[in-house]
């Protein structure tokens, strides 16, 4: 059997995001600065390093980044960023759908549970949500071609698990947990917002106040 360090390195090199939900042991291991340094040293030979969402003691999600960016690395990083950006809109719409359907204040984040059956029940009963789900599931990211709510929602959840945004701790139950990759997603949106001066928060605020009036 591999040691925790070995497992952590393996998962990082597989391109996984390590958070408390997906791999608590590895996450604890990396939370310790000394351990993180060891892993970092190991990855250094492969021109990689441990990166995290949040810094210092607030680091909650770990992933693998390049240490030095050459031509090739930049190309790869550019491609990854484009992939993330292409996935943003479908994911954002899905997150909003989940938040609205479950009537929660907080959007889905790492560790928050989501019950497929419950969500499906609510979506099926509400025509507006049904339309929204149909639109979301037909995005290329999810790639559903079905017209039934059941198949659409299952396909969306399946893809989200494949993409690493959700995990299903017990394969016999329809309960899913959000992973740290969602937190990464929020950070990317925040970054784009700040870098391009989109003022997304102000816009949302203005819109919600407009609704109240």
């Amino acid at each position: 059997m591999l040691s925790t360090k070995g497992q952590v390195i393996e998962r990082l090199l597989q391109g996984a995001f390590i958070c408390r939900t997906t791999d608590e042991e590895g996450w604890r291991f990396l939370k310790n600065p000394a351990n993180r340094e060891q892993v970092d040293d190991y990855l250094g030979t492969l021109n990689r390093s441990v990166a995290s969402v949040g810094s210092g003691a607030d680091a909650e999600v770990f992933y693998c980044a390049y240490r030095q960016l050459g031509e090739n690395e930049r190309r790869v990083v550019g491609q990854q960023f484009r992939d993330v950006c292409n996935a943003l809109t479908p994911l954002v719409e899905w997150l909003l759908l989940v938040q609205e359907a479950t009537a929660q204040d907080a959007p889905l984040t790492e560790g928050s549970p989501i019950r497929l059956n419950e969500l499906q029940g609510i979506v099926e009963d509400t025509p507006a949500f049904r339309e929204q789900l149909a639109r979301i599931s037909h995005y290329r990211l999810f790639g559903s071609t079905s017209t039934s709510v059941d198949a659409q929602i299952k396909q969306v959840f399946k893809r989200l698990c494949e993409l690493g945004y959700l995990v299903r701790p017990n394969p016999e139950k329809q309960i899913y947990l959000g992973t740290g990759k969602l937190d990464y997603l929020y950070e990317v949106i925040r970054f784009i917002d700040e870098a391009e001066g989109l003022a997304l928060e102000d816009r949302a605020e203005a819109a919600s106040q407009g609704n109240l009036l």
Partner: protein
Amino acid sequence: MSANLHQAGVRFLRQLGRHAEPIMDAYLAGSISDEALEPGVQERLVKDGILYRPEPGADLHLRRTVRALLEEALKDDRNRQIDANTGATLATFRTLAAHYTEARHQGDYVAADAYLADLREHVYSFCESLSHSIRVLWSRINNEFGYVGSLGAKIRENELAQTQVSELLAGLELIDFQDLAETAGDLRELRRLLVASLQRSVSDAYLELGVVQARLLDLLGRFRKIQGRTRLLRGWSLHVEQQPDYQPGRHTALPQMPQLLNLAEALLAPAAVDVHDSVLEAELLALAAQVRAQREERALLPLPEAGELVLDEVESFEVQASPIQDAVQQYLCEVIESGRPISALAWRAEQRLPWDEETWLYQVIGGYEALPDEQKDYFELLPEGEDHPVFSGNYIVRDLALCLSV
């Protein structure tokens, strides 16, 4: 005097007990209408200061003190009243201390004792109200302001709690122990009350309030983060709606690319299993079991659409008889034609049939048994053989003959 007070107090408490139902109704609903109470009861409750009418024509409300008593006793979350008026309390301390000193100087020890008891009561209740305020704050923090629904309301509640903490802290600032020590002078009782005991509870309160403040800020940060995320999502969805062809810029091409976007490519592909490693046998078996399970699952997948089913005439087809069955048929015909028993083995030899004896005999028996009952009745099967020499009940067939039955 005190006997009177005692009696009046008992009467008041009995009053509360006797009308517990309407009082609790008023507590839960906020007010109680005139019709719900008998006029006599209503008058008595108002006179005793349990209920009051805030303005003419309004319903009756519970007095603040009674409500506070209930909130305290029920540990009600909605209780967010915090008394931060330290200035007035301090003035009371000083006044009572002055009374006490004066009475001591004049040698009026009875009056001095009464003043001291009064002062003690005030100091204790001040300390108690401090710790109560902190307890109320904690209980609100601990259930994360769960008594209000929306995130916006939680943030407002949090801000209220923070101002209360600052007010409490500002109130504590007012307590000048130097000044209190001078007031107490060299009177031992006063010093113990105003300096020692007060100082202890005030410093405890300081410590706790510091922790409370940190937790409140922490919570506020979390609430704001959650709110910020929701706004980000909504903002993004609005933005994309307004500019459908929006594409984020090429941030990765910048020289100082943010660490956030630096995602390394997946490097490791899963390793293959070593089938020659006997240590892994158990795992491999488990894997193999899974493969089978998957295959079964696949069979359960929805079947492809069935073609249209049309009911029409069944196409005629021929059953191809095997040669051995043909041979049996011929044998039967021969029996019918000749009209005498024919030994199956003799017929086999005569016709030079290619099958071995046993197969042939079985086929003949089978052919006979397969006949429809009315045809079977025309024939008779005569087995030739002997009993098994050792095991009784076993009959060994050496040959058989078929004949027409009589």
